[in-house]
């Protein structure tokens, strides 16, 4: 049995489910969906489990790390991803080192939730993709849901796991619809093939999965069959699933909303070319400029459905 819901509904339901199931789960900060997505009722239903810190991200995140070490399960809605830069010492340098520096004696199961990527016309300082930076930090899990089923499962995986997690969310996913299983799909390190086509494979995560699916639909009209592989988690990276899918296709396109240098897609492509050197591969990432405010300029920078379709088509045609 499954039910069809919007992404934002699945996210709220999953968080509510985990708050209900485990008294250690708490929110340090309340902005999960607000102000961009429809109200989800969490603030009213779980008011006694939500703390409201001042605008002090370093202390907000450090507080959550300390609480996690001492037995709680904090979920930290940081809001816009660039706000986490204020908390970089805690997110990049404390939480991921707790388990290792303790010789495995202590863990910090904290979830940092951010709205990453371009939500269109928020300007250069509100449209970052810090997941690309943080994939260079061992000890941190990075989950990047793209569908209602993903967010349903990965919120649970994050809150039930014993490691710090960066939950890379995206404002523009809010209205995506899809089926959600009765039991959350909490697998990590496993990718999902969301669409099958024989000419080209598109590998993506988060919002770019939705754009890849739209691109695949438009390619079908031109007689090109495109598969779409949804990574779901960036750390652990589902390398085996990616290699399996790559070997079943004549060409592969790696898509990432992050800028190319240091992106998950560029690293993944390197890994694939190391393991399967004959792979025909290309990379589509954001171009190396800040996110401009004007939409016409923004579409030059961040991968659009049209750009993904165009590069995939040229790959499929062997050009």
């Amino acid at each position, binding site marked *: 049995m499954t039910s069809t819901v919007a992404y934002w509904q699945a996210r709220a339901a999953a968080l509510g489910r985990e708050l209900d199931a485990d008294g250690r789960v708490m929110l340090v900060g309340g902005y999960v969906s607000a102000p961009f997505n429809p109200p989800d009722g969490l603030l009213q239903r779980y008011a006694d489990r939500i*703390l409201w*810190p*001042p605008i*002090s991200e*370093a*202390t*907000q*995140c*450090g*507080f*959550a*790390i*300390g*609480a*996690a*070490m*001492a*037995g*709680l399960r*904090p979920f930290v809605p940081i809001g816009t991803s660039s706000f986490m830069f204020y908390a970089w*010492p*805690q997110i990049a*340098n*404390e939480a991921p*080192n*707790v*388990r*290792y*520096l*303790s*010789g*495995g*004696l*202590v*863990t*910090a199961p904290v979830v940092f939730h951010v709205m990453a990527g371009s939500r269109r016309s928020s300007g250069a300082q509100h449209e970052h993709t810090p997941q690309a930076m943080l994939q260079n930090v*061992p*000890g941190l*899990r990075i989950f990047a849901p793209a569908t209602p089923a993903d967010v349903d499962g990965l919120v649970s995986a994050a809150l039930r*796991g*014993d*490691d710090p997690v960066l939950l890379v969310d995206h404002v523009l996913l809010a209205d995506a619809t899809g089926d959600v299983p009765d039991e959350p799909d909490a697998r990590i390190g496993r990718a999902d093939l969301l669409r099958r086509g024989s000419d080209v494979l598109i590998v993506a995560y988060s919002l770019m999965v939705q754009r890849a699916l739209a691109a695949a639909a438009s390619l079908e009209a031109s007689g090109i069959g495109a598969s779409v592989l949804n990574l779901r988690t960036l750390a*652990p990276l589902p390398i085996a699933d990616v290699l399996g899918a790559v070997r079943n296709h004549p060409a592969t396109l790696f898509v990432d909303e992050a800028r190319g240098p240091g992106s998950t897609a560029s690293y993944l492509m390197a890994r694939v070319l190391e393991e399967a050197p004959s792979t025909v591969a290309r990379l589509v990432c954001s171009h190396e400029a800040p996110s401009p405010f004007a939409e016409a300029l923004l579409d030059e920078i961040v991968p659009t459905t049209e750009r993904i379709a165009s590069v995939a088509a040229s790959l499929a045609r062997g050009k």
Partner: protein
Amino acid sequence: MATVTAVRTTELLERLLRARRFDEFLLANADAVRGHFHVSIGLEATAAALPRVRRASDLVTTTYRNHAHLAALGSDLTVMYAEIFGRDLGHQRGRAGSTHLSDPGVGMLHTSAMVSGGVPIALGQAHALTRSREGAVCFCFFGDGAFGEGAVHESLNLASLWRLPIVFVCENNAAAEADRANDYQSAASLLALAEAHAVHGTAVDARHPAAVLEALEALTGDVRDGSGPRFLDAQAGRWPGNATFFPHDATGPTDLRDAQGDADDAWRSTDDPLLNECRRLISTGFALDRMLDIDRRITAEVDDAVRRARLAPVAPPDTAFRDVVGS
């Protein structure tokens, strides 16, 4: 009450000695240490007072200058040396070294080596304690330099706002200026900075361990009573051997007999908390010989610990990949 007890026992002296001899032997065995490290010499008064006020369920956060805290709390000295030498016997199996030394067995879950790094973390630990342990507190140690970091000011504000059960202990070895706290602060005192966030507290002369104990006990009592966080500005002297990376034993092994007459340098004469505690004990009628007996016993323990740690094996290379994340 506590102060009276302290007067009559050698409890503080024993902890001061345990910490001091640990660092002195470490300096003498510095050839076994790779990478930089710091010692607690001259700052041991706060550490020596801590075990008297700490209950088993209390938590403690410390800094890269942590040896005295662990030694005073009774962490295994062999295990501590082993960790500092990068051996598998260390609690952290050679991943942590001196600057990240911790021991969950004495309430230290994680040691940040970044200035101010442990301060926000202490708040969350204190919050968790309010959910599980009635009256439990978190002791948060940091140095005067941490006041240069925004996180400390944020944390004082949040701890105060949420009335968290936390005792902030600033181990302050910066020289005070005429009209301000130190060379790097414009405020009149560190206490004034805490008070600006409505965190009340006191300043104490941390060259004198019994005074520190009295102050720490009063503040901890307030925190356990639910009065919110408290702040202790523990003003210590500055040991001349401290350095940015590698300390050197500028004063040599401590001789308790220096407590009897005039010591031959300024630090020993006025600033050394160990000698000052000896002087206090002498003034209350304690025999120096008895202190020397205690010293011999503790020195032998420390000597044995460092010898055993030096012989401990390093961790097998494949353990470098363990405990990065859970399975």
